[in-house]
């Protein structure tokens, strides 16, 4: 090919790029599935709802899982950010306006080179899922776990 679409691909490891992209969603998925299953079973173990959960320390368990999810989101964001920083030279490799005409929004409009596109994607995905995960965690302390019957 005349010019490779990812000239900085050797500078970052592909598993790192994928980790940056998938760590946040993975953390949130585990948090949602485990926390909702534990809550549902604790508050509604069989066919009748309870006002007090059958599982002792329910909030602690939920918070521990959520903390793990938050750490995973942050780790994804950090790895993706480092990859993004390492691939600055791909600034010229993507589609969009040539560097001498580049506007401040060029990065978001073009994604620049493929490596940089994936790294930036990892940053954005991780930060978004961090927000969702933190909101989820906050609800553990703001909402009564079981129905008041």
């Amino acid at each position: 090919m005349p010019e490779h679409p990812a000239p900085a691909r050797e500078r970052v490891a592909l598993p790192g790029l994928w980790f940056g992209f998938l760590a946040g969603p993975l953390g949130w998925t585990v948090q949602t599935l485990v926390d909702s299953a534990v809550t549902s079973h604790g508050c509604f173990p069989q066919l009748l709802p309870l006002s007090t959960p059958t599982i002792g320390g329910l909030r602690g368990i939920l918070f521990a899982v959520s903390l793990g999810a938050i750490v995973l989101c942050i780790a994804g964001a950090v790895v993706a950010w480092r990859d993004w920083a390492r691939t600055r030279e791909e600034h010229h490799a993507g589609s969009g306006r040539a560097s001498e005409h580049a506007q401040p929004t060029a990065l978001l409009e073009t994604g620049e080179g493929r490596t940089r596109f994936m790294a930036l994607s990892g940053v954005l995905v991780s930060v978004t899922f961090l927000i969702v995960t933190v909101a989820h965690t906050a609800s553990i302390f703001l909402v009564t776990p079981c129905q008041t019957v």
Partner: protein
Amino acid sequence: MSAVLAEAAPVDRLNEIWETPRGWRGSISSVDHKTIGKRYLVTSIAFLVIGGLEALMMRSQLAVSGERMLSAGAYNELFSMHGVTMIFLYAAPVLSGFSNYIWPLMLGARDMAYPRLNALSYWTYLVAGIFLYTSLPLGAMPNAGWFDYVPYASREYNPGLNIDFYALTMILLAVSTTVGSINFITTLFKTRAPGMSLNRMPIIVWGTLTASVANVFALPALSAAAAMLFLDRRIGTHFYDPAAGGHPLLWQHLFWMFGHPWVYVIVLPAMGIVSDALPTFCRRPLVGYTFVALATVMTAMIGFGVWLHHMFATGIAPLALAFFGAASIFITIPSAIAVFAWLGTLWDGKPWYPAPMKFMLGFIALFVIGGVSGVMTAAVPFDWQLTDTYFVVAHLHYVLVGINVFPVIAGVYYWFPKMTGRMMDERLGTWNFWTLFIGANLVFFPMHIVGLLGMPRRIYSYPAGLGWDAYNLIETIGAFVFAAGVALFAFNVWISRRRGRIAGPNPWDAGTLEWSVSSPPPPYNFAVIPTVGSRHPLWEDRLGEGSARSVLAKGPLLADGRETFATTPLDAEPSAVLQMPEDTYVPLALAVSIGIIGYGLLFGLWWLAAIGGIAAAACAIAWLWPARVEKDDRQIETEFGELPVGSSGRHSVGWWGMACVVATEAAFFGYLLFSYFYLGSLSTNPWPDDVPRIGLPILNTLILIASSVAVWFAGRGIRRNRNNHLVAWLGTAIVLGVVFISLQLVEYGREKFSMTHDAYGSLFYTITGFHGAHVLVGLVMLVVVFVRATLGHFRPGRDEAVRNVSLYWHFVDAVWLVVFTSLYITPHLR
């Protein structure tokens, strides 16, 4: 092979290679993506019209209070068929139509990765549609809503064939959609033009890719739910029967685990249509490409974690509600990103407003209204007040009509010139837009108000004096105005097809690759394979794109048969020359066979189902058998280096397809095992009351593991160029697989509980039975590969089929370990 100028390419030869013969034989055997795409579009829009007629009948009934034109039973059937038709037979297939038609043209390929699978997807879809509407003359149309809640749908309350039609149609459509999705995923990752890296793809491609991945993981939930419902109704199992350890809420969980991702399946590609077409009419690239591409992906990701918001009123623990309520609110972030990107593109561009642009602007307005009402229902207390009212009907129609129908019609106006070579009539288009836009708002906006006034969904009539009459009359008038708009659209298509202005290759001055070829495109799509250097190959000079340049007028010819490039997943570097299949009747025959199985199961004619099964197996074997076997390791020299012909290496096109099959089947077993643990957690009795014995299953597990080892040795044998090792180890694996199945049958005969004993028995036999069916399919594949090995079809580097069957067999064995642990071990731990 040096690069050839496009104008010097031997187009007669390319035509001869790629053109489908005229006549009915060519028609039913064609695997051309353009033909299949147009068929999808026409068929799905025909179903849109049918679903629309059903809606008009319902709106006529509800126009005034106390109307009795339709009985309650007929009304139930109509709203169920309307929903099923629109959601399953129109909204998703119409987007498949667009994607099938334009993907290879946008991606710079000569066809989809699996042309035969593409044809199978369409024919199975058509068979499913015909199958569903067979219920009309039989007077047994589905009547429990498009979501078919149990216990309305149980045999006890719904003894006719109605729900059986529904359950089997869902399974047929799942087959169609799954194979179509696998085709899209593989096409995207393996057959893009050289240079089209991930960050250079059009947004609609992101939309369809995301929807396809969602399908792979979501559809198995529907298949599992529908299969269990059919078994409950026809065999007497107890998945949804609380009297025997089952639970009706299991249906709701499974249905919405599928259903909410499906909502995004039917809107994300449509949003992609707008993201690609709107910049054309703003004369500038889309603002925030990276954000919009990511918004598409993130919407689908979060879409998997919000299914419970359809079940807020089912008595779930408050904290669990809070988790899903929060996710349902945050899913608006990516949607809002897309809206702001479109507005930014309008703001920063120089927009002009032909008919497709009008529909896109209408879409944005309806999307915002539908989105806002969606956020409102994400708030749990608000949702409790509105569940099962017309407010929800208003929301879902704003979403589906706004985000699907409007972009679809915009897409037809936009790509009609490419498909036919003629422009659609602009004046009719303007009338068409305003009729549909006014009609949609007239029919759906008042539904918010009557919903807030307390009018419930799915009532066939209502008394006067509740304050609903005027709103309902307006809605009915709006429905007929909307129908007039659809008729106007159909008329415009018909008249423009005959008398429309000649379009030329690029009538909108668009920037993507499909506009670089003639309108309509030639059978081979591209005379030479293009090389892509940017996201807008046709706008590069104007935009002052970076140093990379697309090369469209010169490139590799690839004309020794139906050929196109296989490229690498991320950067689209050429890795091989693919040999594509010729036209064939097998996809149609396979789809018909699957339909015969469906009718056999529906009417309880087991012999008919068996005939269908045997025919399907014969078709599958014919499919798997290669049309030609390369006798030498042919390589050709290209400007991208020396490339193998007919085999694409370790992670080949076939491997990608098999990997997708494994993923979707893994999800299927995941949903079955979720059902097992969910029902187990709800059981008030010791469950199961008679645990299975584990001696024989342990032996069987060891046998299956040994078969996996044998398959691994078989693969190693061919990699070391020892065909006799390949044959011997494959034979060993086949024998071990047969022994496994035999011992499983022995075990079934020894167990004290039956499939109809209780929910545990139902789950035990269903899960192990489905696993056994997978082992049988694996055995058929192993036998085909074994026979081919004895004929000397494989060599090192030419062993795709061995690699693919190995992947499947290892998967089947891995699933067994999870099934074994869940069904046999966990009962002993209670």
